[in-house]
């Protein structure tokens, strides 16, 4: 799967849950940035970053080990697994020296879980109220939403694969609810 280039599970110790048709795992650290600015800034940022920042609401653009997720009209989440955050930031800042924008390192703020398998959407729907039918939430769609009482970013990586980005202190709560939801799903 292509997402393995960006998100990779870190061996058995990172498995939160494995059941028939269901697997939830923690991922290796990646670099993350909150990028804010107008379309012009986003255009330059995308060129420097190596994955253009999508202008379509809820879209994500992945190029190899980098991805840009549309979160709002002037807000994107940038993800990269191939270089340390400081180097990536330096590249983008250099290209945007004269353009108003905000680039903030949030690599450590978030953690990501991979939820995969035939029953992945059903498991997520125990706490996510969005319609996860492929027609309504196609592969590549990403959105900020709620997982019970925790804010997450949900990104569909494949027909049966999702990434859940959350703030790190919320991860145990989300994992706990995923484990609970998987029982008797």
């Amino acid at each position, binding site marked *: 799967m292509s997402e393995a280039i960006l998100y990779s599970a870190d061996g058995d110790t990172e498995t939160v849950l494995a059941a028939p048709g269901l697997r939830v795992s923690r991922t290796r*650290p990646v670099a993350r940035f*909150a990028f*804010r*600015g107008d379309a012009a800034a986003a255009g330059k940022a995308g060129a420097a970053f190596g994955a253009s920042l999508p202008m379509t609401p809820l879209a994500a653009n992945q190029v190899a080990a980098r991805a840009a997720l549309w979160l709002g009209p*002037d807000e994107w989440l940038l993800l990269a697994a191939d270089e340390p955050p400081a180097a990536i930031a330096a590249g983008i800042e250099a290209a945007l020296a004269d353009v*108003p*924008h*905000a*680039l*903030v*390192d*949030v*690599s*450590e*703020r*978030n953690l990501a879980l991979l939820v995969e398998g035939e029953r992945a959407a*059903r498991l997520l*729907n*125990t*706490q*996510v*109220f*969005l*319609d996860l*039918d492929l027609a*309504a939430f196609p592969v590549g769609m990403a959105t900020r939403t709620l997982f*019970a*009482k*925790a804010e997450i970013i949900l990104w569909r990586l494949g027909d049966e694969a999702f990434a859940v980005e959350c*703030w*790190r*202190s*919320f991860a*145990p*709560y989300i994992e*706990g*609810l995923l484990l*609970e*939801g998987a*029982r*008797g799903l």
Partner: protein
Amino acid sequence: MTQIRRTRSGGRIDRSQPVRFTFDGRELTGFAGDTLASALLANDEHLVGRSFKYHRPRGILTAGSEEPNALVGVTRSPGSGTPNLRATQVELHEGLSARSQNRFPSLGFDIGAVNDLLSPLFVAGFYYKTFMWPKSFWNRVYEPFIRAAAGLGVAPTAPDRDRYANRYAHCDVLIAGAGPAGIAAALSAAEVGARVILADEQAEMGGALLHETGATVERQPADRWLEAALAELAANPRVTLLLRTTAFGYFNHNYIALGERVTDHLAVPDPDLPRERLWQVRARQVVIAAGSIERPLVFPENDRPGVMLAEAGRIYANRYGVLPGRSIAVATACDTAYRAALDIHAAGGSIAVIADLRERPDEALVAEARAAGIRVETSCVVTGVLGRKRVRSVLLGRLRSGSVTAAGTVNADCLLMSGGWTPNVSLHSQSRGKLVWDAERGAYLPGAAVQAERSAGSCAGVDGLAAVLADGAHAGAEAAREATGTAHAPRQIVAEGGEAGIGWVLGALPHDRDAARVRAFVDYQNDVTAKDVKLAVREGMHSIEHIKRYTTTGMATDQGRLSNMNALSIASTALNRPVPEVGLTTFRQPYTPVSFGTLATTSRGDLFDPVRKTPIHGWAAGQGAAFEDVSLWKRAWYFPRGGEDMHRAVERECRTVRESVGLFDASTLGKIEVVGPDAAEFLNRIYTNPWLKLGPGRLRYGLMLNEAGFIMDDGVVGRLAEDRFHVTTTTGGAPRVLAHMEDYLQTEWPDLKVWLTSTTEQWAVIAVQGPKAREAIAPLVDDIDLATEALPHMSMREGHVMGGIPCRLFRMSFTGEAGYELNVPPSRAREVWEAVWANVEKLGGCAYGTETMHVLRAEKGYIIVGQETDGTVTPDDVGMSWAIGKKKRDFVGMRSLARPDLVAEGRKQLVGLLTRDGTALLEEGAQITREAVPALKTPALGHVTSSYVSPAAGRPIALAMIADGRARMGETLHVPMPEGAITVEVVPPVFVDPEGARLNV
């Protein structure tokens, strides 16, 4: 003598699988496929409960969820279990243990039945009339008495050990009810590829098809067609079939709540399965196929065990293979009861009489009944029954031009009745759809829809199997077309049998009995009689809403589905106004009772709320720290050593910080990175302080007001670069502050080029405070000069610690001691913490928690937002006018600070308090007065906001907000307490190092 009322053959039960169960401790046997009600009836048990108010013996009235009488408690283990389950819905399983309710000491002999003898006292409005005076009796006598006597069933005493699940779902078409209309709708909707959810509250889908034994559908017996139809739906991946699932709430925007009972019917449930599952469904279109409910007849003693609705008797015979009695009388105003009599007769039952209220019922039906040897009487009304715990005989009367004369007695142990059918409009009504009165049918029917829903089949007033199937198919196709945009002809389904029955009656039946002595029940569960409704009208209740509340009719678990139409008709007659003018009460959620577990789902215990822990949490727990909850965070409260209590631990921690060094986890502080060319201008507008001239590398304490000029939050802000600030907020205020800032940015100042990003969890914060703080961290810092000249108080640097770990190092203090805060990545925070800890230990320092932090800051008079402030406090009130930029043109709250009430004399101001005796510890929140024993209703001068034993001051200290406090320095005031007033002296609110010399060590 087991199952003596079981038929020889037939029914959908599995006779090869006997099932043992207990009712009130007695062992009984039924068959797999039985409900508790059908199994009790098979054992000829009709007496199953006592009524709510009069404790009258009650039997099984219905075969469905509308059952008002047969409420039982089902226990799985001591202390747990569920009260008020309807026996008609409880599926039998091996070992089921059910108990009757509302009786003491036993179902057969119940002391509470004395209420029945006293019934003339308990008329409608009894409580309103009786417990009026003396007023003082209400709290002490009346209410406790009523509370003890009221309530149905026994609430469980043990915590619920079951699990409850939640599922969000979306669909094109949700169909509520899987009777013939619902199944036809599902078949038609699924044909166009719509996503369909079909939910039914029963254990089997099919509704009337499950007992319509004579009918054929598509030239097959009804049950065979049903099997094929369900198989077709089950094979469709776009269709979800939900058994034992009640659509109990219809909310806005086609949001419907379903309650699925997952394991209650299982003898040994899989522990992985939840007991119940809440489905929260967003449906594009809804088809309500809820069927109709047979209406009881209102005649004297119509509540005796053995009195049952006619169609229920037919269901027990056809579906469960149970005869409802040995000798069965039928009283009716509707054709369908003939079908019940004939089916029961065919199943081997004995029908004593069919008493038809009507003068000329359908001749063919009468002929068919008589041909079967059944006595049929027309213009014949039931006027009562004899027998208390079971019908013994039935009294008949002859109707002639409105008056009734006795027409003999019929021996019978069961009376089946039918007053006609009431379309089940509950869900339509919940969706806010209006109802339309149909005088021809004597029924309310669904009117125009408000939401995307339609009713189909008999709940829409369509009768007869063929018509119901056609209406359902049409509704399914229409709903699918509306939802998906794809049109498709409805499925054509040919059916014969299950004909429509005509005839109905509403209201109390005439009789020849002594009206003063007999009671005819309208609402069984709430014990409301026809007389109660009439009395309510006489006493001035003219609206049905008032009558409902005065008599409690329609307030039972069936929400009046059985009783409303009769009550309405009686009220309409008493008021001499047509039914539609009297109105109808609104049906509300939930359709049937829902357990608290289903509503709570997974929100319990550790999963009720997120429990946020810092990267240092594990270390603190390992050190034996006590924790306190601060918003969603767990924070280390204090670190007891060797059996210390909190008081001793905090005293030691306070001394240690002031004498050497203390280590504190400040990771929970909110952090916001404010970035953009207008960042300084933005902060200038949001905070009271000036920001434009703050140089990069400098820190400043920021004070934030709301529009009213009151303190909202505070925190230290660092300038990382010309266009980049690191803002900190209080732990609890972080989300509120970000929302406040974002709100202003988006709505008031969209022109500012500045953006906000929450970085609370990007940085863990290790605070090192005390005279030896620099010594503790110096060996770990790679590339930052810690000398006071290079890094003075209130400045910051970005650099690294421990060989390359990024660090934003702040020199700041919330203790009054020299101090540093190391902002480091959470993934590395534990190792940095432990390295600092090693140094701190060597220096004789300690780790401290939030309690010590509170004491240390109080000794310095530093406020805590939310403790010294309460949402009505201005900067000047807490002596912080210095934080207001005097030359600033504007900031949020600035105009309000000039309001007359905010500049008036007499406002409460922050002061310190010392107790006269030097030992008493004041209580936070205690009131402060001028007199030691003030006269009653003397207003307080103020209140204590913070109070601690201060090791540095060597005595208890307190902060307080007192009217004109700063003008009262040296005054003696009093804090009245239950044990007597404590004398205090007003002092400045700084108890340690007023010059601040210790900050610059």
